[in-house]
């Protein structure tokens, strides 16, 4: 039982970390709190549901396709719906991202009225045994690929010029302006990239995680939990927070009911918001 919790939680947590990472990047660079982030994940999930891959090759191809679609979508949203709200007082950004999420949720509701759908396992094996726990192929591969992507993103952020620009904007936007960084371009790329990451996570989830439209909200809140708890200063903080969340959720579903677990997580999140936000606002969030 304990092993079950740890293994499942760990694997799930790594996937959550990837999702949180997308939000983390956007928040650090742009100070945007994207309520629709979880729904970007759904682009990947419903996208693959719709495309219905028959083989591993088509699954991977379609996954790439939805990622590209999400990148384009993210760019469009940032450029035309979000950019004008930045650096200005008011709550337009909040309301717009909330509304976007709601619009996406109900769009999916109309197009996919049946809840809790998944796609067939695309991987060439069906399950493995890890420490005596049976893990489905979908879950294992999702976790492995998520981890690989997280490492890749970390590399991009710390070792490339684009990453340097991202870090510069997040540490001091005026500084970035003064060294001649085209920050609107950084904003757009980062937001689009975040959307793409989310969609890939969705593509990884759909073989084993049933999807319903309101799952987007659940994922959004979880992504926020990760950013608030662990990710303020570092990518790997987000990952650790993701793993902790995954395990907490796993433990919760074993010992208490599913919806109660969620409630507990939300309340814990509320607690964290109360204790942490000073650190998020006062200190200009930066990559350590």
């Amino acid at each position, binding site marked *: 039982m304990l092993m079950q919790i740890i293994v499942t939680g760990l694997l799930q947590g790594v996937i959550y970390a990837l999702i949180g990472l997308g939000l983390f990047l956007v928040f650090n660079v742009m100070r945007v709190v994207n309520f629709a982030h979880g729904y970007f994940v759904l682009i990947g999930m419903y996208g693959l549901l719709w495309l219905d891959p028959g083989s591993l090759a088509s699954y991977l191809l379609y996954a790439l396709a939805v990622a590209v679609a999400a990148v384009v979508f993210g760019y469009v949203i940032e450029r035309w719906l979000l950019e004008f709200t930045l650096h200005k007082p008011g709550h337009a950004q909040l309301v717009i991202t909330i509304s976007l999420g709601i619009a996406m949720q109900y769009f999916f509701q109309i197009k996919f009225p049946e809840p809790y759908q998944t796609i067939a396992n695309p991987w060439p094996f069906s399950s493995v045994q890890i420490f005596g726990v049976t893990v489905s192929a979908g879950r294992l591969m999702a976790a492995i690929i998520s981890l690989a992507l997280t490492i890749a993103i970390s590399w991009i952020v710390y070792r490339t010029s684009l990453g340097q620009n991202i870090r*510069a904007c997040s540490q001091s936007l005026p500084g970035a302006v003064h060294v001649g960084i085209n920050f609107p371009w950084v904003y757009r790329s980062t937001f689009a990239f975040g959307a793409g990451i989310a969609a890939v996570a969705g593509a990884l989830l759909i073989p084993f995680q049933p999807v319903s439209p309101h799952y987007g909200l659940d994922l959004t809140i979880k992504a926020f939990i990760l950013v608030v708890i662990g990710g303020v200063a570092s990518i790997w903080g987000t990952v650790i927070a993701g793993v902790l969340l995954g395990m907490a959720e796993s433990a919760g579903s074993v010992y208490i009911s599913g919806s109660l677990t969620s409630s507990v997580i939300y309340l814990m999140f509320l607690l964290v918001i109360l204790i942490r936000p000073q650190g998020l606002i006062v200190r200009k969030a930066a990559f350590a």
Partner: protein
Amino acid sequence: MDTALSVEGLRVWRGRSEIVRSVDLTIPGGQVVALLGANGAGKTTLIEGILGQLPMKAEKFELFGDDVRGAKPWEMVRKGLVVVPQERYLFTDMSVEENLEIAAKRAGRHGGHRFSLDELYDLFPRLAERKVQYAGTLSGGERSMLAIARGLALQPRVLVLDEPSLGLAPIIVELIMSTIQRIAASGLPILLVEQNVNQTLAMSDWGYVLESGEISSSDSSDALLGSAAILSGYLAVDVESMEGGS
């Protein structure tokens, strides 16, 4: 010697307020120009307008002969206008070296003065000692130095310095000012904004005095120095106690 920067009828807004109203300003090539004025006169606003950070309008705005009205900040930097801001805006979680590198990477490619990293460490030995230190942990004087060095790493054709000596001890001010003189000696046109009237005029060829968003005096530095009595009235600053840095 061509004109580095020339603007006529410059107006700059902050939000709805027009802070700078109709300013004519010229930075001739190879010269140091001083921009003086009390707090709140609009010096920083003027600079932010020139860089393209704030909404601005101008009848004429040329950088080395190119019309740059409406240019975005990163375009201005590309074209060689580098501003070292009052707040420094360093990348606090990056090392001194990385702060310089990020600027060096974005240097415009034109015949600007080449300030290689070695030359910058030559100019600012204190920074060389702290190459790997995080910018957030530097002292006030070191921050100002890094900000200037970072500006130079962008290979400017015109350098604008907004109060480089602000809040610094006299010894450090001396150091920075003499370094600026060395930079000027290399022929780089400089716009120097300071409240430190005496020293600034001593270092510059021409001076503008900004009052409530308008130029109230524009004359050679020598002439302005001579009228120190008028200046102390305009700027409500005691010229005598200038040595202590403002």
